[in-house]
């Protein structure tokens, strides 16, 4: 083996390994699973667990919103999928919506999730093509959630009780 080859390989390996150590300390994964998930995100091979996603979608359809959110969170552990975050936000919206008043805490969590979805979508404009949903775009869902958390005179309108959940 050539000395220069060994030295070059040594330098490349040292820099790579040092970068890995710095990355570990920067991301601080709490388990091997988190570490491998993070590594797959860095390597660009990360993908949502489709089986879990579908299972969560079914739970969502049966109005089991909390269970659906848990399942989606497990299917997207690195919180890198815009579509999953959109559905999580939608689950918060559906669960928090009320004919007389909305659950502000759930709506705020929904806002966080929809903001993540918007950040993760490549062009910032996310649209989900699901015929069972009444809101398809992230911007529309965000507006709905924001409106739900704000207090206004419209809240006193008795006709509010005839509005529809989307």
């Amino acid at each position, binding site marked *: 083996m050539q*000395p220069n080859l060994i*030295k070059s390989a*040594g330098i490349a*390996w*040292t820099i790579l390994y*040092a970068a890995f150590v710095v990355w*570990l300390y920067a991301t601080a994964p709490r*388990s091997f699973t988190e570490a491998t998930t993070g590594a797959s995100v860095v390597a660009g091979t990360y993908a949502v667990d489709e089986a879990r996603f579908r299972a969560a979608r079914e739970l969502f359809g049966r109005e089991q919103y909390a269970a659906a959110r848990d399942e989606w969170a497990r299917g997207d552990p690195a919180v890198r999928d815009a579509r999953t975050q959109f559905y999580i936000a939608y689950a918060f919206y559906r669960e928090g919506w009320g004919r007389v008043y909305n659950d502000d805490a759930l709506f705020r969590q929904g806002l966080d999730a929809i903001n993540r979805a918007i950040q993760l979508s490549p062009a910032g404009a996310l649209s989900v093509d699901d015929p069972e949903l009444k809101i398809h775009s992230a911007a529309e869902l965000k507006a709905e959630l924001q409106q739900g958390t704000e207090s206004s005179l419209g809240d006193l309108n008795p006709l509010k009780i005839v509005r529809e959940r989307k």
Partner: protein
Amino acid sequence: MKEARALAPVDLMQNPRDSNRLLVRHLLLPTIFLTVALAGGLRVAAATGAFLFVAPPLVALVLAVLLMLLFARGRLIDLGAWLNSDHAPLTNVSHALTLIALFFASAQAFNSVLPDAGLFRWMFAFFFLWTLWNNQFAAFDARRLLRSLAALFGTAFVLKHMLLASLYAPDGGWLKRLAGALLEGFTQGTLTGTQETFAPATGYISFFTLALYVLGLVLLPSAPETDDRDAPEPETSSLVIQYRRLSPEERTLLREEILRTERGRLEDEIHATRTD
């Protein structure tokens, strides 16, 4: 044909010993030191079993600087031989990376044996500083320095991962009960409740980290011999080095060739020496 083979220019890396030395210096040592840098700050939470990565605190970096100075003083590292303008740039870069890795490994080795909070952390830091500062003015050779460091880290390991771990054990180790009885109302809560408890795996990780660190120091050559083709080297010593790298058959052939052409002059020189 055989003569031509014997006199052909030899590959400098024909000798496996040289290959191995290069592999140790340029690949194994950085790997060992970076592994120490990785594992030195790794803890495992007792309650959840989750990994916790603790970056080296400032005091660990200060201790590592003092330790590097001590390495240079004790000739464990001959800095002039590691980084030299006579080396090829590639060699200097590789050596610099190894020394940087050694610095962070030292910082993380201290991080591994320093308590994570409370009064004991400052006591340990103070004793480390005191020991390293005193050692700066003591006469050291590389071997003594290594023994002294092994003892220093060993003692700190026993104190932190055995005695203090027992003191802070959630189920109340023997030392906790003893200290509780002796120091009740005296330490103003500094002995209890301020330390996060870690799983026993943390102690094992720290043990192997320190063992790896000491192994790295043992493998670390004080002055790496030059192996650069382009480094200026006296021609005669280069010839001797190349001769030693030949196989026994090749050496015999070379000697025969020299004797065939130089026999007369060699005999004259020997004769002249004897008559003097």
